[in-house]
């Protein structure tokens, strides 16, 4: 398996990071909603501890992926109309934007609410801000709107991959597969 991305195939680092992120997001969304619903308890704090740790991991992976994209190239989009290409690019840009916005707004929310983040109980993350009620509320709004948006964009992303695979029968899904 090649390391660098080619015109027709994603390299293994891109594939690995993509599927690892997919698995993390699959855990993160229900985990966040579930923990948020719990009454305050040690379990709630522990689950949020995991949610924050995994979220920061997603942020790091997203940054790595962006750098890796910039350092090399990415496979070309298949033949499609101008509008379809623009929509595909918009969708992927939104996914990256949300993979940055969700962890960052979560981190900001924690800092503004005076709660430290112990990343996987190993590293203390610096506070992004001191206690700040207004900022906490804004960050919370951003986090909540972002996750709804992510659910929509993910549905489109997965739907599009399946459409390529089963309707259009092209190599889009296969080139991200192993």
């Amino acid at each position, binding site marked *: 398996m090649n390391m660098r991305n080619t015109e027709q195939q994603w390299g293994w680092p891109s594939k690995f990071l993509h599927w690892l992120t997919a698995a993390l997001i699959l855990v993160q969304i229900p985990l966040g909603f579930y923990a948020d619903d719990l009454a305050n308890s*040690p379990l709630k704090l522990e689950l949020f501890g995991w949610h924050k740790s995994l979220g920061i991991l997603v942020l790091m992976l997203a940054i790595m992926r962006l750098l890796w994209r910039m350092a090399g190239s990415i496979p070309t989009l298949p033949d499609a109309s101008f509008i379809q290409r623009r929509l595909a690019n918009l969708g992927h840009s939104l996914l990256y934007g949300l993979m940055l916005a969700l962890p960052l707004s979560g981190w900001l929310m924690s800092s503004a609410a005076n709660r430290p983040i112990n990343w996987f109980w190993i590293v*203390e993350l610096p506070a992004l801000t001191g206690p700040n*009620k207004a900022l906490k509320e804004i960050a919370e709004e951003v986090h909540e709107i972002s996750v709804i948006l992510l659910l929509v964009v993910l549905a489109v992303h997965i739907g599009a991959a399946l459409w390529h695979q089963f309707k259009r029968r092209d190599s889009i899904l296969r080139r991200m597969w192993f």
Partner: protein
Amino acid sequence: MKIFLKSILLTLPLLCLPSTAEQWRSVATDSQLNYEVTFQGLPIAGQFKRFSVIYSPAAKLLVNVDVGSADMSDDELNSEIANPDWFDTGRFSEATFSSESLNAQSNASQDFIAAGNLNLKGVSEPVKVPFLWRQDAENPGRAIMSGQLTLQRSDFSIGIGDWCSGEQIGIDVSVSFIVHMQRQTDELSH
């Protein structure tokens, strides 16, 4: 009658003189009573915004804390710690420390230890409060007392139920204080 009045008037200043019962009181401005606990292994700080200290050198140290004034810089945390699981401020709004003995530590004349009972959340436990007493060189009527001690929240049933384990919120609570004190010269001055 005249003599009687005269004698009263003459004794009045005596009552107002600074005596062995020299007393100091805390000045709310600039005074701090802070606490720190671990949140998932990392420190998280709070402070009591309203408290008072009365100190009679070599005699007594009295501390009164409005537990409901505890502030952890976040509305959710503040309402959580007021719950029955934590401070239960609805039932126990006040904490007091009253010294039974007050001793200078051997190593330095400015170091003291007040041993007494801390009454918190309806539990009275013996506690030793070490403190440093620094009188203002320019204004002998002012002084700063500061110190630090560690308490176990479990001794006072703070953080009960699932919180007992101390896994997410640590058991040890570090309490520190910097209190500006004012000498109470006489009854007429305030």
